[in-house]
């Protein structure tokens, strides 16, 4: 690593030296160009808080190496002497009415996403930086929210109102902010030059490094970030990995630290709840139409369309009935979806009257309006003009998705593998079609399965004795899988004038009579 060799020590003066090394200018520039300020929200008690607001007599347990241990305990439980790391039985002995809950990482993630959505009001750039860390880029928000202090107060008040205990820290680099927040310091570092002094006294346990690294560092007598920065870069990288060194560089602002902004999923989900059960299908359809219209509004505002929708009809006693709808292309028009829904709804059996209807949109895709076309070219303007994909959708909605398809050619010599059906409703239905060799006589009709022909002295019969027109075309291939063939194909004409494509199986035991099959017709 050339960079490491240039300066063997991580720590450098905070005062810019006039003979700045190339590295210095390289990394100083982006910081100077676009000032960034990262606000870190660290939620140390997220596993507990994700279980919902409680009275404090709750403890979250987690399985580690096959043994359950208390991970976090609520206020009342803590007062009773329950500590993280205790066994559930010990905790129950201390507080008999203690509620124990298994840690639910998925729920924590959901809570974190909800918080991220809430935090989007403060910054356009929110990112989920770990299982319990949220980062906001606030350099651009300071003015709007009345300065750093006011912004910080608003975020803190909001988090508290929602029942979250958070540690907040502000620093010019995301990692520094995260580490400071983990350290529990109400730090606020605004200048890049002040990062180093702020981090120096931070214990290494705030860095979220693997325990083995921390242990060996502790063995060397290194317990805080300042100690770490005093180590030679080269040796540090060799012992603990380049990644750790990079993290330190990123925290100090010497290396860029790009982050991905989190975006709330653009999906539609709406419920319509009725005051009493309804069995009137026309009324239900009308409600569905309303839901579809609000769905269209939602997508219209975002210039999106979707290919899938899911209606769920809830009943008081029976299990909910779901009705998925799929289209051949992304669309948002309520009328279009309503047409599809009506076709499917006619056949839908509802076991009971409906109490609520939910509409969930599928994954969305950018949708651009297309311009219509002028209808000349010898054709009268059509009364009922809709697109090709709409036709396929309508047909599929009535007679089933599997019954409407396209076809594609496949480059395979085995006749029955030389084609496949093409799904018109797959997301990438517009896949390139295969062009295969031309000019070899192939029948327009292929039989789903070769049909065994009766023979007369080894000569195939079909409506009488066949007359061969051309052949044989020997196809002997596919040995690499289990469906190899060894066949001689002939074009033949039956006595009644039908053009047939027959083959003789060469793959037979000695002494067997040749087996003849009909495989296609020259329709």
């Amino acid at each position, binding site marked *: 690593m050339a960079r490491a060799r240039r300066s063997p020590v991580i720590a450098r003066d905070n005062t810019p030296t006039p003979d700045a090394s190339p590295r210095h200018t390289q990394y100083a520039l982006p910081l100077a160009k676009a000032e960034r300020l990262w606000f870190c929200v660290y939620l140390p008690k997220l596993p507990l808080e994700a279980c919902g607001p409680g009275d404090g007599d709750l403890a979250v347990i987690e399985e580690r190496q096959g043994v359950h241990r208390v991970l976090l305990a609520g206020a009342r439980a803590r007062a009773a002497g329950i500590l993280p790391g205790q066994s559930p039985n010990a905790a129950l002995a201390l507080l008999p009415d203690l509620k124990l809950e298994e840690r639910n990482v998925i729920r924590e993630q959901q809570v974190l996403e909800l918080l991220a959505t809430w935090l989007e009001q403060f910054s356009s750039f929110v990112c989920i930086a770990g299982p319990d860390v949220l980062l906001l880029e606030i350099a651009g928000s300071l003015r709007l929210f009345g300065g750093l202090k006011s912004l910080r107060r608003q975020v803190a008040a909001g988090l508290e109102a929602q029942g979250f205990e958070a540690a907040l820290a502000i620093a010019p680099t995301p990692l520094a902010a995260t580490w400071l927040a983990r350290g529990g310091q109400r730090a606020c570092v605004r200048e890049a030059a002040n990062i180093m002094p702020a981090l120096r006294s931070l214990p290494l346990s705030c860095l979220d490094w693997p325990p083995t690294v921390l242990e060996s560092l502790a063995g060397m007598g290194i317990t805080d970030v300042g100690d770490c920065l005093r180590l030679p870069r080269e040796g540090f990288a060799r012992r603990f990995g380049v990644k750790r060194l990079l993290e330190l560089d990123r925290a100090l602002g010497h290396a860029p630290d790009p982050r991905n902004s989190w975006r709330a999923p653009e999906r539609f989900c709406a419920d319509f709840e009725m005051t009493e059960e309804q069995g009137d299908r026309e009324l239900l359809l009308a409600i569905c139409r309303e839901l579809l219209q609000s769905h269209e509004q939602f997508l219209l505002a975002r210039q999106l369309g979707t290919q899938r929708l899911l209606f769920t009809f809830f009943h008081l006693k029976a299990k909910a009935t779901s009705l998925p709808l799929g289209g051949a292309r992304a669309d948002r028009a309520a009328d279009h979806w309503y047409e599809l829904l009506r076709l499917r709804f006619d056949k839908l059996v509802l076991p009971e009257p409906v109490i609520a209807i939910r509409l969930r949109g599928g994954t969305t895709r950018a949708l651009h309006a*297309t311009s219509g*076309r002028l209808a*000349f*070219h*010898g*054709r*009268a303007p*059509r*009364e*009922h*003009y*809709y*697109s*090709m994909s*709409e*036709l*396929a959708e*309508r*047909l599929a909605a*009535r*007679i*089933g998705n599997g*019954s*409407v*398809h*396209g*076809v*594609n*050619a496949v480059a395979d010599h085995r*006749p029955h593998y*030389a*084609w496949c*059906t*093409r799904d*018109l409703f797959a997301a990438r239905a517009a896949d390139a*079609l295969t*062009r*295969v060799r*031309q*000019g*070899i*006589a*192939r*029948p*327009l*009709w*292929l*039989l*789903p399965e070769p049909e065994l022909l009766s023979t007369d002295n080894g000569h195939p019969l079909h409506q009488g004795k066949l*007359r061969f027109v051309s052949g044989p075309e020997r196809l002997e291939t596919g040995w690499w899988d289990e469906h190899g063939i060894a066949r001689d194909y002939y074009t033949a004409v039956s*006595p*009644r*004038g*039908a*053009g*047939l494509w027959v083959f003789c199986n060469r793959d037979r035991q000695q002494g067997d009579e040749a087996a003849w099959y009909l495989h*296609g*017709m*020259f*329709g």
Partner: protein
Amino acid sequence: MPRNSDTSSLEKLLENPRVWRARSQPGPAEGLSSGYAQLDRLLPGGGWPRPALTEILIEQYGIGELQLLMPALASLCVEETGAEVAEPGWIAWVAPPFQPYPPALQNCGIDLARMLIVRPRNDSEALWSAEQALSSGTCAAVLLWPHRLDDQASRRLQLAAEKGGCWAIAFRPLSARHEPSAAALRIELSADHRGTRLAILKSRGGSPAVLHNVV
């Protein structure tokens, strides 16, 4: 001669399908060339009637009943991409008795992207699908293999074809020959060891005729 070449280049320009001339509104009865000269001569409009229903009565499959249509279907694939049409039209196959074989279709010049295969569960679904496809205006041609097609159903197909400006082809057994039908053209195709025989049973604006060994 320079003068001559000037006019020919103008002709060439006017032949370009993108040039639209208000004077030359094509007549409604213009047929779609079948690709078989002797057949075109017998059909009014010089080809398959469009938009309309054509019935092909066959005794058995494999006697060239598809080959008869292939040149016209292939010309539909080319014609429409040449003109400024936003989307090409489907060639819909409703309830085909066997699998239309893509390598052979490509050999005939059919664009596989236009192929729409519909496999309905019963005859009424087949007719519904065909009618939807015909009237949608998004199909260049609809091929249909119904088990039964009564007078009323054929009339519906004929109307749907006119509405959607589409070419409808229904394949029916020879036994249907004495049943009434609203089709604009009825053709009987039969074959024996000597070759094929094509008989025009009914042709709106034309007259019955018999041809041998067209396909």
